[in-house]
């Protein structure tokens, strides 16, 4: 049980870290969208 809790706690910690990193990277948000799959040309976002 403690191992499972440790896994969930670690997952949440990673999530917090990732969201902090995202906040740091997007702190000067210019409205750009991060798309990270493939080499197709990125269209303008229709909902920004």
């Amino acid at each position, binding site marked *: 049980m403690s191992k499972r809790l440790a896994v*969930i706690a670690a997952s949440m910690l*990673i999530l917090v*870290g*990732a969201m902090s*990193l995202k906040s740091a990277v997007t702190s000067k948000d210019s409205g750009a969208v991060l*798309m*990270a*799959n493939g080499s*197709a040309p990125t269209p303008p976002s*229709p909902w920004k």
Partner: protein
Amino acid sequence: MPGTMQYVVWLVGALLEAGVVVCAIKRKAFRRYLFLNLYMASEVVASAIRFEILQHYGFTSLTYAYFYYYSDALLTILLFLVLSSLYSEVFRELNAERYVQMGSVALFAGTALFSFAVVEQFSDKLLSRFVLEISQNLYFVGLLLTYILWAAILKLRETRTRLIQLVLSLGVYFSLYAANYALRNLYPSAEALFTVLNPLIGCFLPFAWAYAFWKLPEEARLAPAGLAVTPR
């Protein structure tokens, strides 16, 4: 409309993605890295459909934009599964696969909930905003997970060269995108340059993975660093 250069980069990227699957089949590594190959095959299919839509409806059409962003979200989820399968591969000898799966599910659910909480405040296009948000959030989760996996590889003294190459290329790929994105936000005036760089970065991962399958045999091992002997 995209220029000739963008079409060329797109074609090269798609060919490299197909190349990864071909190399993996040739080296009999398709099933071992199933999710990785499925991801690359999906990239090729998505590229083909995107091209078809682009030709029919145009670059600025809503159809292309919606298909692009929705398919990107699905591909990011697949990339997350790739990362999870790489974790399973690294932790296989510790019999920790069950915990890796549990962690992946918890992380995915947490990211989905967080993304929903962010977009909940908007009244329109909730689903589309959610798709975009979860795609972006999973990307940052993936970035962090890759470096944690790299640390685990170092700690466990993993020596499988191909596996290390696959993980490291993923780390470089994520980092290049993050750097490009951060610079684009910092210098909005030079956005055109960073937008051109985006597809070029997209070609890096299939190239590095194709190289890993083609050049590095499964049994290749990295020689551990020599121990320094100091006289007493």
